[in-house]
């Protein structure tokens, strides 16, 4: 009897452990959302909701990309440049004979390929991810600058209107991406990414091909980042070789706000998504309250430190009691 029920019990215990500390985050996110609704009731209309989720969508994608790597024990500093490159490729390929589908395929393929190459360098040549992605960010920025030296290019109007118009398409896409992630986690490869981040040696001895899991994590992360770039291009209606710059810091901050650790295996994707939502709401609130950009910098720095420090302080305070 116990042999049947123990896996369920074990599963429940592991799930509880993974959710530990997320309760507070959910509360903070909910509180901020309520504040937002009180300040700007317009969000409750379809149009307002669409606009809000459109601002959140690219940040959510790059946060997933960053969290995916951090769960695997890596990190990437090439998020911003890759978002820019995605936007630039979208804006330069959609005029060709293959049209919009061709452009989307080109962006997706570029993201996957760049991610896979970085992953292969990190996994097989044993270079630290932080440095490889730092060097990679120069190369990616260079490619984006060559393809499109100044902002421009072409995005069909109907695409911009579909993705960033007055309908919540972006939100639906996010739901689809999250469902796909859930399904991916059930595959051996998805689980392997987690396992290899938590305990590489243990994962290897349990039959996980650690190197392959790492390359897959980088490739998927590249794919998500480049697609975020495609969305940004649709949102702005053109390509810009440096538009992605703020995403690097914000993706790391959002993932850390969501409780994802730097050492791999610690954290959950739902936490990271909540972290990105929190950051997005905070940026929006400051923008709409008419904070000057300068004060936004100051507030963002303080909030990020506070959001990371407070749970840690609470934890140590509880332990001392």
């Amino acid at each position, binding site marked *: 009897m116990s042999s049947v029920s123990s896996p369920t019990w074990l599963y429940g215990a592991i799930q509880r452990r993974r959710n530990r500390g997320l309760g507070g985050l959910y509360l903070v996110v909910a509180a901020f959302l309520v504040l937002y609704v009180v300040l700007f009731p317009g969000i409750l209309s379809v149009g307002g909701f669409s606009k809000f989720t459109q601002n959140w969508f690219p940040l959510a994608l790059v946060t997933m990309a960053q969290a995916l790597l951090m769960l695997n024990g890596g990190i990437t500093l090439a998020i911003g440049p890759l978002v820019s490159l995605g936007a630039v490729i979208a804006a330069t390929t959609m005029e060709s004979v293959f049209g919009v589908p061709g452009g989307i395929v080109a962006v997706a393929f570029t993201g996957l390929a760049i991610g896979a190459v970085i992953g292969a*360098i990190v996994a097989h*040549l*044993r*270079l*630290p991810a*932080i*440095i*490889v992605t*730092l*060097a*990679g*960010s*120069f*190369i*990616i*920025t*260079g*490619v*984006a*600058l*060559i393809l499109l*030296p100044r902002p421009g290019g072409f995005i069909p109007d109907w695409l911009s209107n579909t993705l960033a118009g007055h309908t919540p398409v972006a939100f639906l896409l996010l739901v689809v991406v999250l469902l796909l992630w859930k399904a991916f986690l059930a595959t051996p490869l998805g689980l392997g990414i987690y396992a290899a981040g938590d305990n590489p040696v243990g994962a290897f001895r349990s039959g996980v091909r650690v190197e392959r899991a790492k390359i897959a994590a980088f490739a998927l992360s590249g794919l998500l980042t480049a697609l975020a770039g495609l969305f940004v291009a649709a949102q702005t209606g053109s390509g810009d070789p440096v538009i992605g710059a703020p995403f690097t*810091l914000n993706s*790391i*901050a959002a993932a*850390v706000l969501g409780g994802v650790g*730097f050492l791999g295996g610690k954290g959950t994707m739902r936490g990271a998504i909540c972290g990105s939502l929190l950051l997005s709401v905070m940026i929006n609130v400051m923008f709409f309250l008419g904070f000057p*950009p*300068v*004060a*936004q*910098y*100051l507030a*963002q*720095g*303080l909030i*990020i*430190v506070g959001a*990371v*420090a407070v749970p*840690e*302080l609470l934890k*140590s305070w509880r332990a001392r009691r």
Partner: protein
Amino acid sequence: MNAVKTIFRNPPLLTFVLVALVWLVASLTLRGFGAYGHLRYLLELAAVIGIAAAGQTLVILMGGIDLSVGAVITVTAILLPLISPAWDPTGLVGIASALAIATGIGFLNGAGAAYLRVPPIIMTLAMATFLQGLLVIVAGGSAVTVSNPAVILLGQSRPLGIPSGVLLWLAVSAVVLVLIHRMPIGARFLAIGANPLAARLSGVSLPRNTLILYALSGFFAGLAGILVLGMNRQGYVGIGDPYLLTSIAAVVLGGTSILGGRGTYAGTIPGAILLVTTTALITVVNASPGWRSIMFGTLILALLLISGREARR
């Protein structure tokens, strides 16, 4: 054969050999590269990176990272002309107070990492964001010209034909090398980087050493900021930005493990020279900014393959 093996096992030496090779080949193939004046200029540029990377080396050795180096350099370069008092003819008071501010910023980084338990990468990134906002308020986006005599002397004078920036770098190198390899506190830093838990159980105070290290990193970044200001004679928002990535790259090129616990400043010195040489070579090739960026990234990656690899675990 044995000599080759020794070189490959000793990253600092390997990086030195790389620099020597690159300089030799470039001097033979490019006209004007090997001129004394040009090499001296390269060393002068490398001094800024080297001094900023001194603090970075210490922090990385302890297993942390300081992403606020660029912002601290900018803050020092902009604040120094503004806070240098007019009644002080030597300008030393201004330098001392600018260094105090830089050290204070580093101290705050350390306090956040040690007491608030914020991961250093987040703490220093947030600090950089915060400083960026503060600077726009203080300087309003315009450049400030320096008239502090001591700073100009530091940036422009050449006692015995050697730029004083390079002399300053030599002094910093000596101090840092002695600190890491000949003093108990250096052993403590390395112990924390190698295994924080074991270090703590052996009686090494983690918060105390974290505070000292980040304060030192702030101090060296401030020193680099003063040197840059003296060389440029002007401070502006963004002046320190290039030094963030280069300071980290110099450390890793010198064979110091980004995970902490293993490495030496002796590797960072040739690492900084190598970076400056690379940039100079790319400038010689007449290419668009895009291609230059690609070449820089590729060269760093190639150099890392030679000297920055982590041991197989």
